[in-house]
């Protein structure tokens, strides 16, 4: 079967190992980078959707008239 040919042409066993290592590096990198970020920046970033610069006109409570 095709898998026999592949295992014979060499290195296929490494694919899984390399892939998991790659993921580990990317994941660790993202984790470390994230943990190094300042708390104030994270709070600022997290608050972005709540500040869209719209001139306030709409009253939240209006949609619940029943």
């Amino acid at each position: 079967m095709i898998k026999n040919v592949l295992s014979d042409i060499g290195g296929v066993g490494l694919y899984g190992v390399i892939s998991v290592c790659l993921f580990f590096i990317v994941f660790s990198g993202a984790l470390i980078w994230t943990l190094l970020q300042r708390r104030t920046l994270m709070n600022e970033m997290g608050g972005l959707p709540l500040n869209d610069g719209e001139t306030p006109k709409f009253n939240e409570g209006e949609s619940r008239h029943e």
Partner: protein
Amino acid sequence: MKTETFRYDNRIVRAFAIATMVWGIVGMSAGLLAAVQLFWPEANLSLQFVTFGRLRPLHTNAVIFAFVGNGMFMGVYYSLQRLCKARMFSDALSWINFWGWNAIIVAAALTLPLGFTTSKEYAELEWPIDLAITLIWVAFAVNLFGTIAKRREKHLYVAIWFYIATAVTVAVLHIVNSLEVPAGAFKSYSIYAGVQDALVQWWYGHNAVAFFLTTPFLGLMYYFLPKAANRPVFSYRLSIIHFWALIFLYIWAGPHHLLYTALPDWAQSLGMVFSVMLVAPSWGGMLNGLLTLRGAWDKVRQDPVLKFMVVAVTAYGMATLEGPMLSIKSVNSLSHYTDWTIAHVHTGALGWNGFIIFSMLYWLVPRLWRTPLYSLKLANWHFWLGLLGIMFYAIPMYWAGVTQGLMWKQFTPDGFLQYPNFLETVMQIVPMYRLRAIGGTLFLVGTIVGVYNLVRTMRSGVFEPDTEAQAVVQAEASGAAEHGHRWIESKPALFTLLATVAILIGGAVEIIPMFLIRSNVPTISSVKPYTPLEVLGRDLYIREGCVGCHSQMIRPFRSETERYGEYSKSGEYVFDHPFLWGSKRTGPDLQREGGRYPDAWHYNHMEDPRSVSPGSIMPPYPWLYTQTLDTNALPARIAALRKVGVPYPPGFENGEAQKQLAAQAAKIVVNLRVGSITNAAPNAEIIGLIAYLQRLGTDIKSAPAAADAGDGSVPVAALNPNPVR
């Protein structure tokens, strides 16, 4: 610090909102009609255009690209402007995106019922439409990146990251999977064959789910959930990790659609491992969403926006736990080809995508029309009808899937199949198909109630075409600030580059070896290209969407080899452009169909399946008996197949092909006479289809028992049998 006043474009959001409502009803109705046909085939109204095989891709395309696609653009166009504190880069591009996308959908709604299809799931549209999709997607991407470039907010919120990943990855997926050679205005052949085509298709198919149905909606969740709850996301740090882990892992998971098939084992294992790992970032995202509501759960009781959102995020959590579970090979050996998969995808489609779109609509419409929602009571009706609809859909499908999967594998104590007749396993689950249609009806009725409510809301308000907003302009005066500004502007580009690398690695590692070793794939010496009549017959098989219900891939299990015959080898598919392995067995596998029944059986069966298989839910195909084979198309098709690598001799299509076709058709007509069918026309479409069906899986039966052919090909007997169970 200078403050600038500008206007957000609401018109484009309105257009996509109306489109998603209209297409939602259309797509769900098509799904309901398809569901009804599975227990009442006559519901095809005797029309070839809406028979299950052609209706199914219409349903999936309408729901994915029309309903969910327009819903996605609606949310992205609303949130992107506000997160960037800028109007869209170009209004013209926004409208090109809207009209182009919806024209593509109309083209799909016309061509799929007519049978113009590539047969590759969620990529069925033919090559001219593929080109149009590419252009419109580029328009969207330019508009997206243009808006990001002119933003007044220096930070890119995580939602925008998800949008960027979507724009880049969908482009890559669509282009790579749609590489095909045209053989007419609405006919093409995939440049890949067999195993390669399967791997590319499911790399695409899985990641279409990932990057069209999931990542953009996670971005929308990260925007609309904090908005509706009026509090920031639970953990912004978690959202960053969620993003990178998710996009890196997702792209590897495609091979889990091909477990136990002829795909090389290493690729299957890689796909399985990464699929299982995916549960971590997925649940990280789900928990991040749900925990955002801590302290605000009282709002969930009243606010339809949050109600729908909570169910959507929960459905995301359930589907992303189930997905990795189904990717475990031993679970997949039971679930694959059954209705379990159908239950799984509908948890995602109805629960996750459907409910999050409704949530956004209930948020947007009152705000854009500056009026309260018309009726909270109707919104509650919509919610409960939708939720019950999901339950009535999913539970019977789980029941049906597990029941049928177990029946397929059941042996008697003497070692024979307990249910050797496939039809018996189908009839067992027909009641579940009826229940599923009730679930679908409930969901559709809920949607109609919701749309009515939203339309009444629109009518009672006044639409605001632009919303005025203000933002502080980033400093530009000093050199240092300029440097900072440049640095910020370069970030989206760097970010996009990193995201692109992350999504390319997985695809490259899995796909490239499959092509590099192409010359090493053991071709089976007895596997030959299809004859001209079989080519036309195969095209009819594709046109009628037979692949929607019949697989051509026998897995190496004893329960399958007993039922269908020798398990499938990768070398058998080297001339299959496109591959037709299928993903669902509503009917039996057809890989070894050739020679199983006489020609006359197929003739009678296709005309009225129940005349030979009482109780069958397969629809009749009377039009195949009155429509004539399109032999004029043959030269273009043979030439196109040669271009993609099928070794037809030069000039074969000029005369010789037609001669062979006529001879084979005449032989089938003679065979039919033996079976007491005297009125068969040699140029009827059914003749071509019979030729193809009788060829299926027969090549390896004529293989030499031993000895190398001397041309590097491997005789069948030398292939490792190695059946798993």
